């Protein structure tokens, strides 16, 4: 375990990305150097346009850098071809989007099964069992047959998290996962991330522009104009489980006083 601690799970050097929009060239990322160690819970913050999302897409192998190096679990990923990157997306990284990105008119179970379909020879029964287990892990064991549009926003995001977890990746990336959720549901989802980080040993990198959400992590990396502006540990970390209990108490009091 101590050896694993020494090798960063994510290691990027001078990573940059330039979008060529015809007349304009947008330098979204201008040389970012960061290490993320296993089991870390890192929050990326910054204003919109600061490059934090671009960075996430590069780390998630959803996009390719213009220059710079990226080692994922000690392996140089920046030079890999599209097929190898597809394999990494499938088995080594789980990605959670702000807009959930569930397949419409499809059940929660089938949505979670999706990465398993592309994972090679997995039988129908085993696929079903693993997807069910992943949904139970995010507390949706009783919603397997529900369609995406029959679920609340928080539930949809938890389906998306189950989908990210179903191939047992070591790294979970989340791009503004609470951006479309109300306060209570946001706390719920952050509680789920904290639980996965603490109890399943997942490394989590999460993008958010809300400072209070960032305090659920243990390290905050702030982006500005395509560069890392600051990188510091969270001094007073928030615990979602406790806050949730308190939140429900106040809600009950409100209900009584009303």
């Amino acid at each position: 375990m101590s050896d694993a601690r020494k090798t960063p799970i994510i290691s990027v050097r001078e990573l940059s990305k330039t979008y060529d929009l015809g007349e304009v060239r947008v330098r979204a990322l201008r040389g970012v150097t960061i290490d993320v160690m296993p089991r870390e819970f890192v929050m990326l913050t910054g204003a919109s346009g600061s490059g934090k999302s671009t960075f996430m897409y590069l780390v998630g192998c959803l996009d390719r850098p213009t220059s710079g190096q990226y080692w994922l679990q000690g392996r140089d990923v920046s030079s890999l071809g599209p097929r190898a990157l597809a394999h990494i997306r499938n088995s080594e990284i789980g990605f959670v989007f702000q807009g959930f990105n569930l397949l419409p008119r499809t059940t929660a179970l089938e949505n979670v099964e999706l990465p398993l379909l592309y994972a090679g020879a997995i039988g129908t029964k085993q696929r079903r069992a693993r997807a069910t287990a992943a949904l139970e892990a995010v507390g949706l064991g009783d919603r397997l047959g529900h369609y995406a549009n029959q679920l609340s926003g928080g539930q949809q995001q938890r389906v998306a998290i189950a989908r990210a977890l179903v191939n047992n990746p070591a790294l979970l990336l989340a791009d503004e996962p609470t951006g479309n959720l109300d306060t209570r549901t946001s706390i719920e989802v952050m509680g789920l991330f904290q639980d996965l980080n603490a109890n399943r040993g997942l490394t989590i990198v999460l993008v958010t522009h809300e400072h209070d959400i960032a305090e659920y992590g243990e390290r905050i990396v702030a982006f500005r104009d395509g560069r890392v502006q600051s990188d510091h540990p969270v001094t007073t970390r928030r615990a979602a489980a406790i806050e949730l209990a308190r939140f429900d108490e106040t809600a009950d009091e409100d209900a009584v006083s009303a």
Partner: protein
Amino acid sequence: MSWSVIFVIAMKALRRNAMRTALTALGIIIGVAAVIVMVAIGAGAQASIESQIRSAGSNIVTVSAGSGGFGPVRQGQGAVTTLTADDAAAIRREVPGIRYLSPGLNTRSQLVAQTSNWNTQVQGTGAELPAIRSWPLEFGAFFTEQHVTRAARVLVLGAVARDQLFGAAADPTGATVRIRNQPFRVIGVLSRKGQAAMGQDQDDTAFVPYTTVQKRLLGVQHIMNVTVSAEDGVALDMLTEQIAALLRVRHRIQPGDQDDFMVRTLEEMASVLTSTTETMTWLLASIAAVSLVVGGIGIMNIMLVSVTERTREIGLRLSVGARDVDVLMQFLVEAVVLSLSGGTIGIALGFGLSYAVATIMEWSAVVTPQAVMLSFGVAAGIGVFFGFYPARKAASLNPIDALRYE
């Protein structure tokens, strides 16, 4: 990645977008069915016109007395008396490939029965005329070679002449009809044939042996025409040439002089009709082509309209680890399944509608394999191309670009 998994993914995608699937299939179904029905009706019309020509006798050659050319003194048909029964006999004897032959000599006369009378065309012919014209009898029998030899006073009535003299549907066989004050025995009635291609009523007529017209009605030696039907497979232009050559020798016509006869075939008429049906087939084929294009555009529209949604779907699939080939195979299978099932339903519908048109409207409709293959091929081709091509573009994007596609 195994084909069974790809197939499962594709079928799930088709089921998830049931409306789009149905609309795309509908485009293919309508395109295929419309082409099949249109071409079937066209082919049926052509076949029925061809069979009408055949029933009129497309293998018939007519020799008529008189000149068709532009001589110094042109005489009308029938005014020339050089064509004789001996010529007819010589044609039969010396020209190969003749199946039936009938000399002809017509006159117009009043027919007088017991209670009524009627003015009609009296056609003197040989005994083989019904065989030449493929003309069955309703009652009795046509006159025989013996009747012709004896110049017998026997009479076969056309249906309209019979109606006028004896009343509709009556069987007058054995009755007596007087022509120019001579008693003729009615021995048969021809079945109704309707109007000829040029409009004249073929049933307002009466047949007697041509010898009878020569000796008993007109008192002449010549005949007006010879009608010949060729054996199957005999080239009519060859037959025409041989008959003309023989008659020129017999009539001692010098090279360069005007013929005193004309040899013509029904082919000339048939070729006009054939070109008419060809025009019609082209017309129907272009209607079919238009319906195929319309159906194709329908397929294309549905496929292209859903590109945005599908590009995002592709982005999502790529982001959870699908390789570009996995996505391409999925879309290919989807497009092929859609095209095959839509095409099959379209073919079935095309057959059904062709059959329905044939029965209800009493048209003939002939489903041609070319129409089936062409329509199916084009519709399936369009379906596969427009299902596959946008997917190919999307699958080559970075996952994040496909996910954020607008």
